[in-house]
């Protein structure tokens, strides 16, 4: 028997193919995350001016919390979440922490936009991808032994995306900076640092085998808890309640934004799981490009602006696409993936999570003897209750009086669903959402 015919050789080939398949899946998830996270801004654009940004943020987070109990609950029931928690209870703390980081970062962006405008603020907080690369390298062995070509692809791609983001932000800016520019710069930088650091818990969870859908569950608790605390401390309970009551006719649109955001975040979690945070964050940062497409094509935001603005938009978009392509073509080599596995072994040793379970989950499969995800009555009750809340607010929602371009809206929505179907089916076929 030649070496190529031995069972060991066949297993090695299978492992390599599986690894490549998961890398492609992670990249596809990153693209889908960018499209869905960018589209999450669209429903919020339907909300007229006059509502406090803090209330807008709080209602969106409520939508995120409720949305967790609709579509994702159908994929992974509460029994699977409980099983994940039994195996790695410490991950609840990590997910709550990530949710708190998101809420504070999101609030800081409100102040940043108010004080320095989107032009300066966006590129500053978009630097979170560079911080993600640093944390991934320092803490999780990402890009170790990756070779200069992959380093150039990932770091160069992230930098090119930052430059593209800056151009897009300049083009989409409409407001002039206010007098508190230094304060705004600090707020934007702070948001970037918080969002970049939020991916430490993300990666930590996936190196210890937690399912992204379980992570999102506890993440949404942390997010809602922190956002509620920030809103109450900032506005006071009674004024906040009054403003929520006065905004009830638009609550649905904001919650719909939260719903779309959750789907984007779930894809982002799978990207962080299968390609790491150093590649996953820049890929999902392409959401700015999608947000701009919705703004220009559906809401006619740049209508009547000078040709130089359109040059900036096209240039910025091309740069972002170039950066995304550079990162997408810099998937991890076998040597780098060995270093990821070393980091996973370190985590399973520290938190005493069974090594075979961690290995199986990193490989996107179930461990031998693990019960298949199933739905029980509680899951269906939660799905019905959460969906009913959406339906009730949809029934009382006021349709805004504004000009919308329905053709591009339909096309972009179709692209979104195409991503959902292709990426969702791929995740199901290859990993069964494990």
């Amino acid at each position, binding site marked *: 028997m030649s070496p190529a015919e031995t069972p060991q050789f066949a297993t090695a080939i299978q492992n390599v193919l599986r690894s490549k398949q998961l890398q492609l899946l992670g990249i596809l998830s990153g693209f889908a995350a960018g499209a869905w996270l960018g589209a999450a801004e669209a429903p919020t654009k339907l909300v007229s001016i006059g509502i406090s940004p803090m209330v807008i943020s709080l209602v969106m987070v409520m939508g995120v919390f409720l949305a967790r109990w609709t579509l994702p609950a159908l994929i992974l029931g509460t029994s699977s979440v409980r099983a994940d928690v039994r195996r790695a*209870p*410490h991950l609840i*703390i*990590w997910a709550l*922490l*990530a949710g*708190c*980081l998101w809420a*504070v*970062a999101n*609030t*800081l962006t409100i*102040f940043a936009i108010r004080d320095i405008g989107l032009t300066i603020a966006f590129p500053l907080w978009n630097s979170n991808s560079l911080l993600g690369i640093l*944390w991934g390298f320092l*803490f999780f062995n990402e890009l170790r032994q990756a070779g200069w070509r992959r380093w150039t692809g990932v770091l160069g791609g992230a930098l090119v995306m930052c430059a593209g983001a800056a151009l897009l932000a300049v083009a989409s800016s409409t407001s002039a900076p206010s007098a508190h520019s230094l*304060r705004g710069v*600090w*707020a934007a930088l*702070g948001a970037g*640092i*918080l969002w970049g*650091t*939020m991916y*430490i*818990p993300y990666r*930590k969870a996936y190196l210890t085998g937690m399912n992204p859908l379980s992570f999102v569950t506890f993440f949404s608790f942390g997010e809602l808890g922190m956002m509620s605390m*920030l809103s109450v401390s*900032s506005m006071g309970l009674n004024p906040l309640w009054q403003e929520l009551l006065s905004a009830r006719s638009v609550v649905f649109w904001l919650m719909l934004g939260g719903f779309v955001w959750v789907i984007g975040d779930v894809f982002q979690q799978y990207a962080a799981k299968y390609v790491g945070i150093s590649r996953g964050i820049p890929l999902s940062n392409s959401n700015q490009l999608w947000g701009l497409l919705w703004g220009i094509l559906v809401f006619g935001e740049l209508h009547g602006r000078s040709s130089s603005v359109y040059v900036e938009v096209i240039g910025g978009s091309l740069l972002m696409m170039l950066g995304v392509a550079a990162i997408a073509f810099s998937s991890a080599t076998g040597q780098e993936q060995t270093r990821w596995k070393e980091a996973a072994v370190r985590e399973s*040793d*520290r*938190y*005493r999570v069974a090594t075979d379970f961690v290995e199986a989950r990193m490989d996107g499969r179930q461990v031998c003897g693990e019960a298949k995800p199933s739905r029980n009555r509680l899951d269906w009750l939660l799905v019905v209750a959460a969906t009913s809340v959406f339906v009730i607010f949809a029934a009382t929602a006021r349709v805004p009086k504004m000009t919308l371009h329905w053709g591009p809206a339909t096309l972009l929505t179709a692209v979104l669903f195409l991503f959902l179907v292709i990426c969702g089916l791929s995740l199901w076929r290859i990993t069964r959402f494990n």
Partner: protein
Amino acid sequence: MNAAEPDPKTRGWWTSIFSDIHFWVPVAVLMGGLLLLRFIR
């Protein structure tokens, strides 16, 4: 392993979290973010 060092297997997961540098980095960043928010407001 040093004989005076507690066996990792006997430590609770709270101890594992609190002795993990990866935990304190996001906590420190969160605290910094809250302070920054307070300063800005």
